């Protein structure tokens, strides 16, 4: 299964890079979809159907909305002239990437193996979660009972986002009239 995951992740990385580099915005959005749906397959392979359901719906909605935006506005990327001195930035970026990979390789030394967790908290949740919350779906039990404050914060963030978007759009619309 790990090789399958690695192939999927490589495909997702390729899709993300193509989405950055594509001149046509529609093909950029479509290749961005590779990332999302690859993530769905990863979640299913890792036996996380909760996340997979949310991811597939959100991915479809985001793709549909972005394609609608592109059809209504423009398909061409704004052309920018690349200045001559960009090779300094390439070198800096290369050094940063190498350093990041080195630090990442150092920092994952102490982690446990893939698929084996050793966290005491999670073991406790898995053992006693169903008894303590009465919920068969352990994810719901954790999200809405043990971690209720987190969910409150999440939906407050969503509420704040909606209020902000409504404020900005309606202000602009009223000025326009």
């Amino acid at each position, binding site marked *: 299964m790990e090789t399958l995951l690695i192939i999927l992740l490589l495909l997702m990385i390729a899709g993300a890079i193509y989405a950055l580099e594509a001149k046509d915005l529609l093909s950029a959005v479509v290749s961005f979809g590779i990332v999302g749906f690859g993530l769905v397959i990863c979640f299913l392979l890792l036996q996380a*159907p*909760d996340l997979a*359901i*949310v991811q597939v*719906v*959100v991915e*479809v*909605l985001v793709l*549909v*909305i972005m394609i*609608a935006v592109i059809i*209504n506005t423009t398909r061409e990327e704004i052309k920018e002239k690349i200045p001559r001195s960009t090779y300094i930035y390439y070198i800096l970026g290369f050094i940063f990437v190498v350093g990041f990979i080195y630090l990442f390789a150092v920092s994952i030394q102490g982690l446990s193996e893939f698929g084996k967790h050793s966290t005491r908290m999670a073991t406790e949740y898995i053992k006693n979660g*169903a*008894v303590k*919350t*009465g*919920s*068969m*779906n352990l*994810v*719901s*039990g954790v*999200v*809405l*009972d043990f971690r*209720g*404050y987190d*969910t*409150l914060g999440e*939906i*407050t963030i*969503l*509420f704040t*986002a*909606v209020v902000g*978007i*409504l404020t900005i*759009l*309606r202000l*602009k*619309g009223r000025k*326009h009239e």
Partner: protein
Amino acid sequence: MTIIVKKITQIIAGPIFLYGLYIVAQGHLSPGGGFAAGSFIAGAFILLVLAYGDKLRHLKTEEFESSLIETLGILFFIITALGALLLSIRLGFIPVFFKNFLTKGIPGNLFSAGIIPLLNIAVGMEVGGALFTIFLEFVIRSSKEGK
């Protein structure tokens, strides 16, 4: 959109909406829950708006109902949590915010897990309302500026 898209949307939007309701009702039993269900419900309405976009010009300037649902969702969530705090004092538990004060029931039954189904419904209302409000607001703005 063409007639094919419209007919398929007519057939399929209802089942998508019902599946969202099913997921939110079974959120404490099977995979899913409030977030997934809210996205499904919002997706059904977004599909309708996308397919019938031409005929939806009579949308009002400021659609009120979807943001009302969204606000009611977050209010319901906070009221349930606060009510758990207050009622757990009366019922003799240790007073905790988000106290699961109802009876747990048998795990696996539809009416079980105390307040978790209620909170699931609140989260579903919030997420569905929020996604649909954002989408609708962009649609209304763009159609007004297009005129």
